[in-house]
Each structure stands twice: as structure tokens, then as C-alpha cells.
């Protein structure tokens, strides 16, 4: 949809900018991922704040995660998370079979090494969203076959 395009183009340019502004791409890779993740974090916080202004309190952690999978994902990516799994001990795996920000990159295994850069912002987005809902977490992502990917959320006890 046309109104998704501005964000996608901006996101791409963001990645280019963060990647370019380092002298030694090899060693700076981790720092770049962190920068992107941190930006996503602040945006996630802001988004959730606006989204949940009039929502009632969440019942529990699972409720929060379902909100992320349905409402939050729909607001951000115009679709829901396709699959949510948990071990009921604070680890959740969110699967998106057609992750919007990867679909332009490739379908399959090409450019797999670039995927982390395209996932970092979104990991931050989730972490920031959760943070504003009172949930502290670590969010990572992995891709095996684009454009499907999995976001892993590890809840941190505060």
C-alpha cells in the first residue's frame, strides 16, 4: 500500500546511513545494529504510547504479547504475526512468514547476511513497545529463508 512506502523507503535509507557512517564496516557492524535497534526502541515506545492511550490494562504477560502480535503488528506492518509460540517461562517466538521489511530484499537465501540490519530496527520497536507496557525484554531476530523471520522475545524479570 502506498502509505507504507514512506516508512519502508525511510527505513532503507536509515540502514544505508548508519552503515555508511563508519570507517571500518567489519568491526562496526555490531555497533550499527545497536544504533538501529536503539532508534527502533524509541519509536516503539512512542507508538505504543499513542496506541494504548485509551486501552484498559492488560491481564498478564501473555495478553501483552498477543497485543503485540495482533494490534501492534497490524498497526506497523498491516498484518498480524502468523504464529506465536511460548514456553510459558518468559520466552516467546513471533513468526512472520512474510516480513514486510524483508520482502524487498530477496526471497530465499540471497542476501541473508544483510538481514540482521533489516531486522534491528524492528527488534527495537518490539522492545520499546514492550518497555512502555511495563515489560522488560531482550528481542532478537533470525531469518533462515526470506522473507520469513522469527522474533524472539526474552522477558527479563525486573
Amino acid at each position, binding site marked *: 500500500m502506498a502509505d507504507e512506502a514512506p516508512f519502508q523507503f525511510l527505513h532503507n535509507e536509515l540502514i544505508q546511513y548508519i552503515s555508511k557512517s563508519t570507517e571500518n564496516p567489519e568491526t562496526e557492524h555490531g555497533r550499527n545494529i545497536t544504533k538501529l535497534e536503539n532508534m527502533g526502541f524509541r*519509536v516503539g515506545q512512542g507508538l505504543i504510547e499513542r496506541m494504548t492511550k485509551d486501552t484498559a490494562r492488560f491481564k498478564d504477560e501473555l495478553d501483552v504479547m498477543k497485543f503485540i502480535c495482533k494490534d501492534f503488528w497490524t498497526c506497523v506492518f498491516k498484518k498480524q504475526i502468523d504464529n506465536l509460540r511460548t514456553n510459558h517461562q518468559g520466552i516467546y517466538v513471533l513468526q512472520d512468514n512474510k516480513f514486510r521489511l524483508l520482502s524487498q530484499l530477496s526471497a530465499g537465501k540471497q542476501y541473508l547476511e544483510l538481514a540482521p540490519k533489516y531486522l534491528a530496527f524492528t527488534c527495537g520497536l518490539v522492545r520499546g513497545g514492550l518497555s512502555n507496557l511495563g515489560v522488560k525484554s531482550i528481542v532478537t531476530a533470525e531469518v533462515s529463508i526470506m522473507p520469513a523471520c522469527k522474533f524472539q522475545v526474552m522477558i527479563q524479570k525486573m
Partner: protein
Amino acid sequence: MRKNSELFTLTYGALVTQLCKDYENDEEVNKQLDKMGYNIGVRLIEDFLARSSIGRCQDFRETADVIAKVAFKMYLGTTPSVTNWSPAGDEFSLILENNPLVDFVELPDNHNTLIYSNLLCGVLRGALEMVQMAVDVRFVQDTLRGDNVTEIRMKFIKRIEENLPAGDE
């Protein structure tokens, strides 16, 4: 559910914040925003042409209308008005009553030469370059700086020959 534009607006804000950290002065940030906008524009034009199936514009007036009524509407959900044409017909203004990039934004005190939305100028410049038009684009009024409206001035410089490659900056 709220419009997706918030994601864009918030992300844009995060970008400007990052640039302000990375660069020493507003002028540098403005330049960087323009450059990034340009990089986006040269790609966005393809997306635009694919979605809108607009044919080649006959003249600059038509270009102005397409920018305001089709492109801005499509991507930013707002339709600026096209006004203040120069007598030669080579310069006009886009007046934005509301600029989606600046929702909830306030410029901090030490950034009064920052052109917050300068990305837009780069986007327009880059996009038009891909359809063989060299233009100058700049903000002349900005609600963030206390003006009543946001005004972007666009000036046609010249037609670009088709076989000259336009490079990324």
C-alpha cells in the same frame, strides 16, 4: 487503529535526533537530510509511477499538480495547495496546512537553523531528476519555526538530457 503515518513520523523524528547527535551544526544536518531525501527520491519515483500510472507531464504546471494532488496525497495523506506562480511559470509554492512529519515535534532552542523537514526537498529533487527535470527545492516557511504555514518553493532549472547517468550522492 491509528494511521500508519505515526510510524513514519516517529521514525523520521528518531532520524533527525540521530543526525543532530552525529553532526556539529544544523547546516550539516540540513545537508544530510537533503542527501538522504535525494537517495529516497530517486527510488520513490519508480514506486510512484508504478502506482499512479501517470504519463509524462506536459509542462511544469502539470508537474506541480501531480506532485500536490497525487504524490503528496498518496504518500503523506495530505494535499498541499499550489500557489505563487512566477510570471515565467518556472517557479511555484506548495503550501502545506499540516505537515505530517512534524506531528508532536517541537524544535529545541539551540536548533533554530534546522530545517526539520528538509528530507522532503531532497525527495522532490531526486524524484524529478529521474524524470529529466533539474529543480531547486527549498523551504521558505516552516510551522516549526513559528510561521503559519509550511511553504516549499520549487523552481525549474532545466531539462536533463536522458543519456546522462544520475548518480547517488
